[in-house]
C-alpha cells in the first residue's frame, strides 16, 4: 500500500469509449468467460442449466456480488476492506437481536446501516487521517467488530431472523430471487455513481494518483472515506440478506466473504494498485466464483477437493487476468 509516486505507465484509461472491437473486448471481454463456464456446467449435467438451478445460482450470487461491489470501490482508491465479513456477521446479529422489537425490518436496516456507517468512517479515518495501511486498519476493525459481537452475544447469538428478511434473502418472485433484484437496483445506481458521475471520476483520479488529486483540489481524504463507508454499508446489506438466506445467525455469517470479494475483484480486473476497475468487473468475478463453486459441487467431489480446486482457480484466474499487475507493491 505504499503511496510512493510510481513512474509506471499505469494511468487509468480514458473513459471516453472508443467503439472499436478491440476496445470493447478490452473492457467487456471478461464477461465472455461466463457463458463458457455455464456451458461447461451444462455439459457436465443438463440439470445445471435448468431455470431452477440458474435461479438458485442467482440466490447465492447476490450477497457475494453486493460485497464485491463495495470492495471494488475501496480497491479503486488503493485500499482493501478486510472488515466486510465481520460487518456482515454484525449486521446479521443486529437483525436477530432486534427481531423481537416492534419496528420490524426497517429498524433492523436502520440499525445495521448506522453501525456500517460508523465502521466505514472508522476505516476511512484510520486510512486517511492516521495514514494506517488499509490492510491493517480494516484488519483492526474486523477484530474490533468481532470482539464486540462476541461480547454482545456472549458467544451464542439467539433470536430469529425476521420474516420479511427471510423473504428478501431466500424468496423468489416469478423465479427471480428478491435478493437478485436488490442487487440489480444497487448495481445500477452504483454503476451510475462510479462511471457516470463527477464523484465517480474523482474516485478514479484519487485512486490513480492521490497527489494529483490533491493538486487538482479534490478532497482526496473525503473521497476515500466515502468509499470505505459505501463498502461497509453494502457489506451490512449483504449480511442482512445472507442471514435471511441462511435462516439462522451465528457469529460467523459471511465468513470468507472478505477474501472471496477481493478475489472476485482481482479476477474482475479491479487493480490491486488502485485507479482501475469497474462494477461490471466485480460482478463478473463474483459470478465466476459462484459458478465454479457450483460446478465443483456438481462433480460430486468431496469438500476437500473443492477447496483445492478453488485455490488453484484463484491463482490461475489471477494469473490470466491480472498479468498487468506486476507483482510489485501491494
Amino acid at each position, binding site marked *: 500500500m505504499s503511496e510512493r509516486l510510481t513512474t509506471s505507465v499505469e494511468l487509468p484509461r480514458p473513459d471516453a469509449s472508443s467503439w472499436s472491437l478491440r476496445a470493447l473486448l478490452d473492457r467487456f471481454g471478461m464477461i465472455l468467460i461466463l457463458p463458457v463456464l455455464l456451458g461447461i456446467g451444462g455439459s457436465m449435467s443438463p440439470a445445471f442449466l435448468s431455470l431452477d438451478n440458474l435461479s438458485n445460482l442467482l440466490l447465492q450470487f447476490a450477497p457475494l456480488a453486493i460485497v464485491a461491489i463495495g470492495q471494488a470501490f475501496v480497491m479503486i482508491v488503493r485500499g482493501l476492506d478486510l472488515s466486510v465479513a465481520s460487518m456482515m456477521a454484525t449486521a446479521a446479529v443486529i437483525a436477530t437481536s432486534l427481531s423481537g422489537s416492534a419496528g420490524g425490518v426497517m429498524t433492523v436496516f436502520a440499525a445495521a446501516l448506522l453501525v456500517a456507517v460508523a465502521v466505514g468512517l472508522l476505516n476511512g479515518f484510520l486510512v486517511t487521517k*492516521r*495514514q494506517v495501511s488499509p490492510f491493517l486498519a480494516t484488519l483492526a476493525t474486523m477484530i474490533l467488530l468481532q470482539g464486540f459481537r462476541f*461480547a454482545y452475544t456472549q458467544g451464542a447469538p439467539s433470536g430469529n431472523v425476521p420474516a420479511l428478511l427471510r423473504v428478501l434473502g431466500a424468496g423468489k418472485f416469478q423465479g427471480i430471487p428478491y435478493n437478485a433484484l436488490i442487487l440489480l437496483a444497487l448495481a445500477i445506481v452504483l454503476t451510475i455513481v462510479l462511471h457516470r458521475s463527477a464523484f465517480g471520476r474523482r474516485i478514479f483520479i484519487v485512486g490513480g494518483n492521490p497527489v494529483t488529486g490533491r493538486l487538482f483540489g479534490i478532497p482526496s481524504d473525503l473521497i476515500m472515506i466515502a468509499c470505505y463507508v459505501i463498502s461497509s454499508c453494502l457489506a451490512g446489506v449483504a449480511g442482512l440478506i445472507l442471514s435471511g438466506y441462511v435462516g439462522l445467525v451465528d457469529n460467523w455469517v459471511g465468513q470468507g466473504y472478505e477474501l472471496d470479494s477481493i478475489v472476485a475483484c*482481482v479476477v474482475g480486473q479491479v487493480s490491486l494498485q488502485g485507479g482501475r476497475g469497474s462494477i461490471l468487473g466485480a460482478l463478473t468475478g463474483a459470478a465466476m466464483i459462484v459458478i465454479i463453486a457450483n460446478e465443483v459441487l456438481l462433480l460430486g467431489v*468431496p469438500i476437500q477437493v473443492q477447496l483445492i480446486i*478453488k485455490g488453484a482457480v484463484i*491463482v490461475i484466474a489471477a494469473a490470466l487476468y491480472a498479468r498487468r499487475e506486476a*507483482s510489485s*507493491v501491494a
Partner: protein
Amino acid sequence: MTAAVSARMEMPWRLRKHTGLAGVLILIAAVSLVGGLVSDRFITLNNFLNVFEQTTDLALVSIGQTLTILSGGIDLSVGSLISLTSCLTSGLINNNPDRIIPVVIGVLALGMLVGFVNAGLVVALRVHPLIVTLGMGAVLQGVTLLYALGPVGRVPRGFNFLAYGRVYGLPLGATIAVLLCLLIALALRNLPLGRQVYALGDDTNSARLVGLRRTRILMLVYGCSGFCCAATGLYLAARFGVGQPYTGVNYTLASITPVVLGGTLLSGGKGGVIGTLLGAFLIALLNNLLNFMDVSKHYQLVAQAVIIILAVSVYVERRRTV
C-alpha cells in the same frame, strides 16, 4: 554492488528500527504497569515465564511472516500450512517414538517446500503474493482435510516436552523461538542476502535495476515463512497431543498483528524480527493482564483491536512517504 546497497542503508535502517522497537517497549511497560497495579502476582518472574511460554506459537509464525512483509509481500497460507503440518506430525508419528526424528525433519522440509512453491508462483505467474498465498492456503486446507477430517494420530508422551518442557527454568518452545529469532535477526543484518530483503521491500523497481535477484530473495523469504509455519505446527501438535485440521485457521491474520506492533511496515522494507517477537509478547501479556482482571475472553478481542489501532495510528506508519 551489494556492499554499496548495505552501506547506503546502514544508518537510516538502524534509526528506524529503534523507533519501532521503542513503541512496542513502551506498550509492554504500560501493560506491565497496569498489571502491577491490578495484582501483585503480575510482575513476577513466574508470570512472565508463563506469558513467555504462551507467546511461542504466535512468535514462531510471526517471525516468518515478518520476512515476507519486509520483502514487500505477505503470506496468507500460514494458517493452512500450520494445520497441515500439525496433522502430519501427529498422524505420521502416531505414537511411535522411533519416527519422531524423520517426521520432524520431513515436516520442516515440507514447510520450506511449500514456501518455495509460493515464491516460485509469485515470480513465474507475476501475480501478487496476496493472491498466490491465498490460493495456496485454500489448496493446503483441502489437502489437510483430505488427510484428516478430524483429530488425527497421537504424539508420544515425550514429544510434548517441546511445548511444556523447561530447560534451566526456561520454557523450551519459547526459547527455541527466541533463538530462531536472534539467528534470523543476525542474518538479516549481516548477510548480503538479508540486506537484500530490505532493499527489495523498500523499492522493488530500484532493487531490480541494481540487479538484485528477486527469485532467490523471495525463495529465501517464503521458504523461511514455510519453515516457521512447520515449526508452529510441530509445536501445536506437541501442545495438544494431537493434530487437528482446523488448528491453524486463526493464525493467518493473527500472525500479522505482532509484525505490525513490532514496528515493521506493511508496505515492506522497514522493521525487523526482534520487534515482532516483542509484539507477540505484548499480545500474550495483554491477554494475561485481562485474565488477571477477570475480563471475559470476548472483550480480549476488543482490547487487542484497540491496541492495534492505537499503536499503528500513533507510531508505525507515520513516516510513510507523500
